[in-house]
C-alpha cells in the first residue's frame, strides 16, 4: 500500500519523472519494513512474555500507556504541522520546528517497545476484527513512518507528499491506538 504513491506521482505537473523516481526506493524500503514486521510476527511462535517495564502491573498496561504517550505525541505532530503549513492561523513560534521533530521522535521511540512486545510475545494475529486491524495497521504505521523519514531530507519533492505521508502514519497510529490501548482501558479500566 505504501508503494502506491509511485503510481500517482505523474499527477502534479511540475514534478515529473525525477521526483517520482526518488520516491520508489523509500516506498520499497517502507513496504519491506511493513512486510518484514508482519511476516516475522506471523512465523515467530508467540512466547506470551517479553521484557517488561518497571512501574506497571503488567506488560499490557505498560504497552497501553506507552502507546497513549505515542498517540499524544502524534497529536502534537499534527497540530504543529498544521501551524507550520499555515493551516492554523496563529503566528508560528520559532520553536515549532523543534517541537514537530521532537514530538515525532518521541512518538516513534515510544511505539518501538510496544511493537517489539506485540511481535515477540503476541505475534501477527487474525482471530478477531479488532486484532486483525491492529496487526495490519501496526505494520503499516512503521512502513509509512519509514517512508516519511526517508523522503524528508530529499529536495524538490511535491508539496503534498510530506503531509500525505505524515497523514498516513498518523492515521495508522490512530487506528493502532484505538484497537489496542483504547480497547484495553475500556475493557479493563484505566490502570497502571
Amino acid at each position, binding site marked *: 500500500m505504501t508503494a502506491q504513491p509511485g503510481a500517482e506521482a505523474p499527477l502534479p505537473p511540475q514534478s515529473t519523472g525525477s521526483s517520482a523516481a526518488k520516491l520508489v526506493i523509500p516506498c520499497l524500503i517502507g513496504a519491506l519494513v511493513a512486510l518484514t514486521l508482519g511476516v516475522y510476527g506471523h512465523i515467530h*511462535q*508467540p*512466547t*506470551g*512474555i*517479553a*521484557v517488561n517495564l518497571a512501574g506497571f502491573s*503488567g*506488560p*499490557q498496561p505498560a504497552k497501553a500507556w506507552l502507546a497513549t504517550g505515542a498517540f499524544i505525541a502524534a497529536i502534537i505532530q499534527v497540530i504543529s504541522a498544521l501551524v507550520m503549513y499555515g493551516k492554523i492561523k496563529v503566528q508560528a513560534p520559532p520553536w515549532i520546528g523543534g517541537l514537530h*521533530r521532537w514530538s*515525532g*521522535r518521541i512518538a*516513534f*521511540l515510544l511505539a*518501538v*517497545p510496544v*511493537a*517489539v*512486545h506485540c511481535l*515477540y*510475545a*503476541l*505475534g501477527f*494475529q487474525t*482471530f*478477531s476484527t479488532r*486484532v486483525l486491524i491492529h496487526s495490519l495497521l501496526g505494520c503499516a504505521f512503521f512502513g509509512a513512518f*519509514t517512508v*516519511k*523519514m*526517508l523522503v*524528508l*531530507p530529499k529536495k524538490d519533492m511535491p508539496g503534498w507528499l510530506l503531509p500525505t505521508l505524515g497523514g498516513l502514519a498518523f492515521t495508522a497510529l490512530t487506528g493502532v491506538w484505538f484497537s489496542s490501548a483504547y480497547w484495553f482501558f475500556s*475493557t*479493563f479500566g484505566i490502570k497502571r
Partner: protein
Amino acid sequence: MRRNTPLLTLLAGAALGVALLIASMVATPGTRSQYAAAGTATGPGATASPSPSASPSPAGPHSPLQADFTGPVTGGGATVAVSVRGGKAIGFVCTASGTATWLRGAAAAGLLQLAGRDHARLTGSYLDHRASGRARASGTQYRFAIPRVHQAGLHAAIVNRTAAACQPPAAPVDNGGGGGGDNGGGHHHGGGGD
C-alpha cells in the same frame, strides 16, 4: 541539512527495537529453548544438544502458554471453562439450564479477552493454577475464580463445541429433594486428542 537526522531517527528506533528483542530473548529462556528445540529438531547438525527435559509448559511464575481452567462461577448458577493455547483462548459459559455459550479470543500476558454471540464476553486474568475474572452470557453477569485442570479432551470439546462439554453446575448440596443432579459421572466425551 548536513546530517540526515530522519535517518538517524530511524536507525535509533531500529537499534532500540533490536536491543529490546534481544533482551526479550534473554529474558524468556524457558520458552526460547522450548521453541528452539522444536525448531532445530528438523535442522541439520542440531542433534548435539539434547532437548531440554521436554516439559510441556515452561515453569515459572508467569502465565502458562497452554492451560485449561474450569469450574463453577462464584455463587453458582453456571460453569465456566477457558482453554489457553499460545496467544489464543477458547471457552464456554454453561448455565444451570444446560445452555452453552461458546467464546473465543485472546490470551496474552496473563490476560483473557474472549467474546461470543449475543454480546457474550469473558475478561479476566490467569496464572499457573488459577483463572479469574468476569463473564457475561445470555444477559447474565458472572464472576469466576476457577482452578487449572488437567482434563483430557476439554480443549477438543470446546473446539468442537461438543454439547456434552457443557456440564451444568452440580445442584447445591442442601437441596434435599430427589432432583439432586450428580453431574460428575458424565465423562463419556473425554479422551479426544488435541
